[in-house]
């Protein structure tokens, strides 16, 4: 038994087994559940890094469940796969790395942050299940399996969003909204799966991609998939759930929710690039995605400026930053059918968009964690009631400055690296888009200066006399993310060349994707 062939499934199966064990352990010792969850997630982080090294050196990996060998995609001379498989290429593992880091940091942060709450065993079980769901969405090569993992992720996130619903009404309300939104999107995805199945009798992404004809029904399936996946990713005008869910969930869960909505974004890109690729009308669909991006960027940031609740403000910024990813990748899609323009600026735009996914997960996670730290010590999320907290919480202040500088796109932090790629390349496509992106960036900076001023600066307030720095494990969690942000900001070329560029190429080259499963490169 060679375990290195089984890494893809172990990444998912170990947290899953831990999630099943946590309620049993919780009967004996409540404290042990958090440690078990952290251990399981750290194992899966190590395995993900190992798999990333393998994929980036050897090439895409497949893992077929229940076959006689993990890489046997086509049994006995068939032209199509019959079993479920994981198909992980550079893009999939790129998203997987984000999920692994974010979930590990979230678990460490939760150890102290959630200590006062009841029902900890359920909390950690749900956290592990959410991680499993997001991993599954990113790794799977089977369209129905994707639906199943989408449901795991959304049900776990609903339960986590309304986790504090036992004492308060708002978390339950946000949970209900998110549940309705995610059930609709999951069911519409299932309807689209039915359309594909009815036409081609296939359920595998790669096999579907090789036969898809862009008939009328395929157009309808695309027209159903793009809006619902964009809705799950939190794009304007379907963003109504985002601020509620992000602001009412506990801070580590908000960070995981960002990763979960990025998994939907990944699925959208996967559908557009790997499933349809050149067969669709790239210019039209590209512009649709660009318009989603523009609306998200602009409306997100303008709504953010008027907020008084710190987590709601950051949630609107999350919507706004999602717009950058849509913009970058949309420009890449719009010129997909035009090889010269693609080579000239399309690939760079996509690199910017994809790189921004990872950067966004890191700095937005850090910002939500600092907001959680403020809430943990001061007991309020209202910016008007805060003030002078920099006197008491030095580390949190430093981490907040790092996060805010990164989101506003100031050098030398990672937000600058990806935003610069987007500005440069989008300018060649359409100067107006680039100018809007820059204006949004300036507004973001203004908004965060306001937050910094009202929460951290000012005289010492008497009601915060008891406030002190957050516990060490929370500082450690935030420090990990800060280090990643600074590292990415200092060496962006290294990351772009080794991680982002292969991911972009694996999206663009459809033949490579289908060839991994069907052979015959």
């Amino acid at each position, binding site marked *: 038994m060679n375990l290195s062939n089984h890494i893809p499934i172990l990444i998912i199966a170990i947290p899953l087994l831990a999630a099943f064990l946590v309620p049993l352990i919780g009967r004996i010792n409540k404290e042990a559940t958090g440690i078990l969850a952290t251990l399981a997630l750290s194992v899966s982080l190590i395995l993900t890094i190992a798999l990333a090294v393998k994929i980036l050196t050897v090439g895409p990996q497949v893992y077929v469940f229940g076959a006689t060998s993990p890489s046997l995609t086509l049994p006995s001379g068939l032209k199509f796969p019959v079993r*479920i498989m994981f198909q992980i290429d550079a893009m999939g593992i790129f998203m997987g790395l984000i999920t692994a880091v974010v979930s590990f940091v979230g678990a460490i942060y939760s150890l102290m942050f959630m200590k006062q709450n009841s029902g900890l065993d359920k909390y950690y079980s749900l956290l592990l299940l959410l991680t499993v769901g997001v991993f599954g969405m990113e790794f799977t090569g089977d369209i129905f399996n994707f639906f199943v993992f989408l449901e795991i992720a959304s049900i776990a996130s609903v339960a986590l969003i309304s986790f504090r619903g036992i004492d308060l009404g708002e978390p339950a309300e946000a949970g209900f909204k998110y549940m309705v939104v995610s059930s609709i999107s999951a069911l519409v995805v299932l309807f689209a799966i039915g359309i594909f199945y009815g036409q081609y009798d296939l359920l595998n992404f790669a096999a579907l991609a090789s036969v898809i004809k862009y008939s*009328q029904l395929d157009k*309808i399936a695309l027209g159903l998939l793009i809006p619902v996946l964009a809705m799950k990713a939190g794009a304007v005008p379907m963003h109504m759930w985002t601020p509620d869910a992000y602001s009412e969930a506990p801070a580590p869960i908000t960070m995981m929710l960002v990763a979960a909505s990025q998994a939907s974004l990944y699925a959208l890109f996967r559908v557009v690039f790997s499933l349809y690729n050149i067969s669709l009308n790239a210019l039209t669909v590209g512009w649709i995605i660009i318009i989603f991006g523009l609306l998200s960027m602009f409306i997100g940031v303008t709504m953010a400026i008027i907020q008084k609740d710190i987590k709601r403000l950051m949630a609107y910024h999350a919507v706004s930053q999602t717009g950058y990813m849509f913009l970058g990748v949309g420009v890449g899609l719009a010129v997909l059918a035009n090889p010269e323009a693609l080579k000239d600026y399309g690939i760079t735009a996509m690199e910017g968009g994809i790189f921004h996914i990872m950067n966004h997960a890191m700095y937005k996670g850090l910002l939500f964690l600092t907001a959680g730290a403020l809430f943990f010590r001061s007991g309020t999320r209202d910016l008007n009631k805060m003030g002078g907290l920099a006197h008491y919480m030095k580390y949190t202040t430093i981490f907040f400055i790092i996060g805010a500088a990164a989101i506003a796109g100031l050098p030398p932090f990672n937000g600058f690296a990806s935003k610069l790629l987007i500005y440069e390349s989008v300018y060649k496509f359409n100067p107006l888009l680039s100018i809007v992106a820059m204006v949004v960036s300036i507004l973001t900076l203004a908004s965060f200066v306001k937050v910094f001023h009202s929460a951290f600066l000012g005289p010492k307030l008497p009601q915060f006399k008891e406030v002190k720095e957050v516990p060490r494990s929370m500082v450690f969690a935030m420090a990990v993310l800060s280090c990643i942000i600074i590292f990415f900001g200092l060496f962006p070329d290294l990351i772009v060349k080794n991680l982002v560029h292969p991911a972009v190429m694996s999206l663009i080259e459809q033949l490579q994707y289908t060839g991994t499963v069907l052979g015959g490169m």
Partner: protein
Amino acid sequence: MKKIIFGIAFIIFFSFLIVSAVNMRTFGEPAFSEMDDYFIENAQRETGANNVVTSIVFDYRGFDTLGEATVLFTAVVGVVALFRGVKK
């Protein structure tokens, strides 16, 4: 205002569905069925179970079933977590 937007969205969505229903292949005559024919012919030999649906659920697509059991488990944990303050 909100009702008008919702109405437009509803009409667009519903027309999508109607068009897809009309364009779908005729009921009862699957155009392609290679994958399912493979299951019908080989399921008994490969898994030994007489019930082809069960052999798909637990063997060919067994991982889906694990996911499905996980969804149910998630829902149970979620419901219990929501009502966790309630003494029986």
